[in-house]
Structures are given as structure tokens and as C-alpha cells.
């Protein structure tokens, strides 16, 4: 079960960040070729990311590449760099329809074949940044077997919605968060909450993390390394939660040993999802 609590954004054109970001040990690193890179530097950034993907320091970390939209002059080349460079996941920005995911899937498959990468090895995640994307979240999330995650990108979405941005964005993002989460759960993939832009406001960040965790988001897009540890700690289960999880797993074990069809704990029935959740809790505890 791959933990995806923290996805650290690293601008693809920034040599210092590309050279050091692995030390922060996020669950995933996202090399950005899209919004963080100016058009005249896209070619240079693409090569930087290609080389970084292949660097030994990054081999243990899940590597995501945010490519430019496929209908731009940059997108196709970005894909070549990402797949050939060995990215674990390609992140498609501004996803609005399942068709876009299917098209991406096809292109990735072609490149895998051309460069000898095992078919299906490259995964996909979709970033939803508009009303259309939110409304199509379910079909997007189920559009391809390569899909492993769906993320909500808050800023662009709110602009698209003509919403006024309040401090915590809570009411404005309510529907979008819910839609993305439902889509993720229905498709059995991971869900990422929005990035928190104010790097000096730890309190605000943690408040938002609390909301994301409460709602059930697997993780959050992060724009600064210091947010990683804050997030991991916040996602760590409490001792009580850990103990409960251990008891659930123990109960399941016992039921299996006794050949019982039904698992119960403290007089309540335990369904498989609860057991899965217990495993996840222990993993989170271990990783914190």
C-alpha cells in the first residue's frame, strides 16, 4: 500500500531544488514542467527533469512529472521525457474529461513501447482545476487502469468558479472536495487535497490539513519542504487509534484461525473495509 500523504512540488527549472529535494523524504516528488516554468525555459527544464528522474538519489522516492497540457507545443515532448526518464506517475493538469485521460494513456503506451519500458509501468494522475473537471471527476477517475490518484487544484478551480477566496476556502471548496473524494473512492484510487500557498502560516496550513484528513483525503500537494513534516505528523494516528487498529487486526486473525465467518470486536461486527483501514492506520503510524 503506497503511502501518498505528501506530494512535494519541485519547479523543473530550479537546479538547487532538483539537487536537494530528495533529502526531505516526501512520499512523492512532483517535478513541475507546467506552471512553475516560463515558456522560454520549458526545453531546458524538460532536460533537467529528465536527468533528475534518472539520478540515483531519487530512485527510492515516487517520482511524478507534471507535464504541460497535451494540446500545447510542450506536452508531447514532456511526455517523452517523463516516460523515458522513468517517472512513476505522469500528472495531467487541468483535466476536464475522461477522453483526455484515455488520450494520455494511449500516448504513454506508445512511448513505453518505443523505449522498452514494461507496458503499464507508467501510472497517471489527474489534476482537476475547473468546474468541468469536478463535474466529470468520476469518469476521469475511472478512465484508465493507469489512474492511481486524482488531485484537486484549488486556485484555478476557484477562479473558474468566479468564487471569492476567503481565508480557509472551506465553503467554496466543499463540493469540489466532496466530488473528488467520491470519485477517488469509487475508483479505488488516491485523492489529493489542494496546495496551501502561504508558507509562513503553519497554523492555517495545519487547519487545512485537519480538514483534508477528516474528509478522508490520502494526502496534500505541498509547495514547501517544511510542510512535509507538519503534514506527516498531523496524519499520524493517535495512540488510541493505533491500539484500536491492533485490536481489530488481532480480532481478524483470531477469527481466521478459528475458521469463523464473522469477525467481531467489542460486540460489534468488523467488515473488511474496517480491517483495511486498520492496516492503513498501522502503516501511517509506522511512517510518521
Amino acid at each position: 500500500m503506497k503511502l501518498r500523504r505528501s506530494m512535494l512540488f519541485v519547479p523543473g527549472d530550479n537546479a538547487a531544488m532538483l539537487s536537494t529535494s530528495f533529502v526531505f523524504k516526501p512520499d512523492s516528488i512532483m517535478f513541475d514542467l507546467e506552471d512553475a516554468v516560463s515558456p522560454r525555459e520549458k526545453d531546458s527544464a524538460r532536460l533537467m527533469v529528465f536527468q533528475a528522474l534518472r539520478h540515483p538519489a531519487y530512485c527510492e522516492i515516487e517520482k511524478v512529472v507534471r507535464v504541460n497540457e497535451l494540446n500545447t507545443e510542450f506536452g508531447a515532448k514532456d511526455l517523452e521525457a517523463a516516460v523515458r526518464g522513468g517517472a512513476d506517475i505522469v500528472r495531467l493538469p487541468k483535466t476536464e474529461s475522461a477522453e483526455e485521460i484515455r488520450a494520455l494513456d494511449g500516448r504513454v503506451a506508445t512511448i513505453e513501447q518505443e523505449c522498452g519500458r514494461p507496458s503499464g509501468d507508467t501510472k497517471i494522475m489527474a489534476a482537476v482545476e475547473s468546474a468541468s473537471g469536478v463535474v466529470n471527476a468520476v469518469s476521469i477517475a475511472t478512465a484508465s487502469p493507469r489512474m492511481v490518484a486524482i488531485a484537486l487544484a484549488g486556485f484555478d478551480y476557484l477562479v473558474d468558479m468566479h468564487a471569492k477566496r476567503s481565508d480557509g476556502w472551506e465553503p467554496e471548496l466543499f463540493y469540489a472536495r466532496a466530488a473528488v473524494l467520491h470519485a477517488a473512492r469509487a475508483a479505488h484510487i488516491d485523492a489529493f487535497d489542494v496546495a496551501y500557498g502561504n508558507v509562513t502560516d503553519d497554523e492555517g496550513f495545519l487547519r487545512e490539513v485537519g480538514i483534508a484528513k477528516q474528509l478522508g483525503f490520502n494526502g496534500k500537494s505541498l509547495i514547501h519542504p517544511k510542510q512535509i513534516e507538519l503534514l506527516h505528523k498531523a496524519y499520524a494516528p493517535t495512540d488510541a487509534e493505533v491500539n484500536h487498529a491492533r485490536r481489530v487486526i488481532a480480532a481478524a486473525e483470531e477469527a481466521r484461525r478459528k475458521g469463523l465467518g464473522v469477525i467481531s470486536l467489542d460486540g460489534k461486527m468488523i467488515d473488511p473495509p474496517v480491517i483495511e483501514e486498520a492496516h492503513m492506520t498501522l502503516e501511517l503510524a509506522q511512517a510518521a
Partner: protein
Amino acid sequence: MSATRDFYIIQPKDSPPEMAEVRKLLTTNDLELDDEIEQFVVCRREGRIVACAGLDHYTIKCVAVSEDRRGESLSLQLGSEVVKLAAERGQYHLFLYSAPRNLPFFRGWGFYPLIEVPRLVVMMENSPVAIKIYCDRLRKQRRQGRQIGAIVLNANPFTLGHRYLVEQAAAACDWLHVFVVKEDASLFSYDARFALVAAGVEHIGHLTLHAGSDYIISRATFPGYFLKEKTIIDHSWAAIDLLLFRQYIAPALGITHRYVGTEPFDPVTNHYNADMKHLLQQTPSAAPPITVLEVPRASINGTPISATEVRRLLTRRDFTRIKQLVPDATFQFLENECPRVPQTAE
């Protein structure tokens, strides 16, 4: 969410309110705004312009970083943005002038010192090897002789006066090197001027005609923008160009004598000639001194021949008088060029 988004370019003429901010930043850094600057790279953070750097053709000017932001990163980003802006405009060979105490700052920008006027200014270029490569190329054109002369001409256009100067110098030297000023800042283009010079000196055998360069009377070799004292501006203006000639160009070609025509009309050139005598002959330097010889201008009917006069006559379409002042090739050129030159109704 990228730091480089804070950087953008402003055209001084189009952005008065932003230029007011830039001016303020420059003033707090003891700098005066240079009117020749064509574009500014600025960095805006938290609503204020905190760094700026101007570009005048291929010279970087007016570099300032707000005192509270002086860490490495911002200034190196600024330098990168300026270099990229220049590259977009096709300018890869860049120069700048710096107070000597700021030399390390600009070394961080990949600039290397060329000429220093002690305690006043240091001129730098963005290459560790460009001047060396240029001099190596010149060295291949060295000629033997006891008296090796040099003339730098703008020749806008080439007149009988220029021809006279070249002939006088050639007569006295074992070999003569003639350079044409490269900047396209004159009425006639560099290519046109060069062609007329070439035609005009064809008859002299022991002469090499050199293409102009960034190192000889170019936009880059005119410093002084950031010095408030006008008198110092005049002196350092000439100094850089002349010291470059003395320390690099002359030794590469073995030049012993430099020839100039007397300058009765233009005060700036007159001043330059005076500085030339001082800097090439008298100023102590590791490089050997060069004798400066002023050749009296050729005259017609008592009036010294000047390119300025020829251009003036051209605006009045007075080809009769022009014919007296220029060789044939130049005359034919002027006749052809004439429609392009505005006519004055005097």
C-alpha cells in the same frame, strides 16, 4: 508559485509609475538613471520593486538591489534574468561598468574585469576568454616594422579628409592598421561605411583594414553613466576605450603610433584626442606607450574637410560642393543614398 514570476521587464518610456519606483531604488544606491537604458529587468516582491538592472544595447547598467534583500539568491536571479533578456535580443557578449568595490558581486554574474581605472570604475565583460580570443585573432595579423601605425575611423562617410589622414600615416609607417567603428549609430550603416573606407584605401599596399569590434569605440566602451560628477564622466569615458587600446589591442598588433586628425568642430572628439595623448603616451602602464600624432586636417579653400559638413550638404542636396570633399566611390554612394536622407528646406 515560482520565484522567477517576480521578475518582469519594463520599457522605461511606457511605465512612468514603475520608473518612479526604479529611480527611487537607484537613488538609495547612489546611482543615477541612465537615459540610454532601453529595458529594465525588475523584481517585485511584497508590492515593492526590490531589485533592478538595465540594459542599453549590450551594456548592463543601473544594477541595484534593495538593502534589506541583499542575500546571494536574489542578485543571482537578477543576473540570470538580465543575461536571458539580452540573449533573447541576440546579445550574448555583454559589458558592464562597476565601482571597483562591487567587482566580486559581478564576478558572481560571470563577468570578468577588462580595464580598471583605479578607485573609479572597472569595466567588465561576460566571458573569461573573449578579449584573449580577439587579441589572438589580431596577433595573426601582426606585421614587422619599427613604426606600426593605427587609425580608428568612423567615416560617416569616408571623405578626402580621411583619405589624407590615412595617406599621411601610411607614408610615415612600415605598416598601418585601420579600424572602422562598428556601431550602427551613424547616418550610414557600418557595412556602407566599411565599404567606402575599403574603396578609399585600396591604393595603399602596406595597410590592413580591420572590421570594427565591441572593443574599439563602441557603445560598450563609453562608461560614466553612474558617475554623478560630470567632469569625471568625461575623463573616464575616454579612459576605458583608450586603455583597452593600449593594454590589449596595440600590444597584439605591435602598434607604436596612433594617428588622429585635428578636431576643430566637435568638442567631444576634441576632448577624446586630448585624453588620447595623455593615456596612450603619459599614463604609467605595464603596456608600452604609444606615440599619438595629430595630423592637421586636409582643407579645401581654407575650410577643414569634415564628414559632418558632407552630411549637412547632403541634406541640402548640394552635390557640387560635396564632389569637392569626397572621393568618387563615396560620391556615387551619396548620390544613390540621397533619396533616403531627409532634405532640409533651409
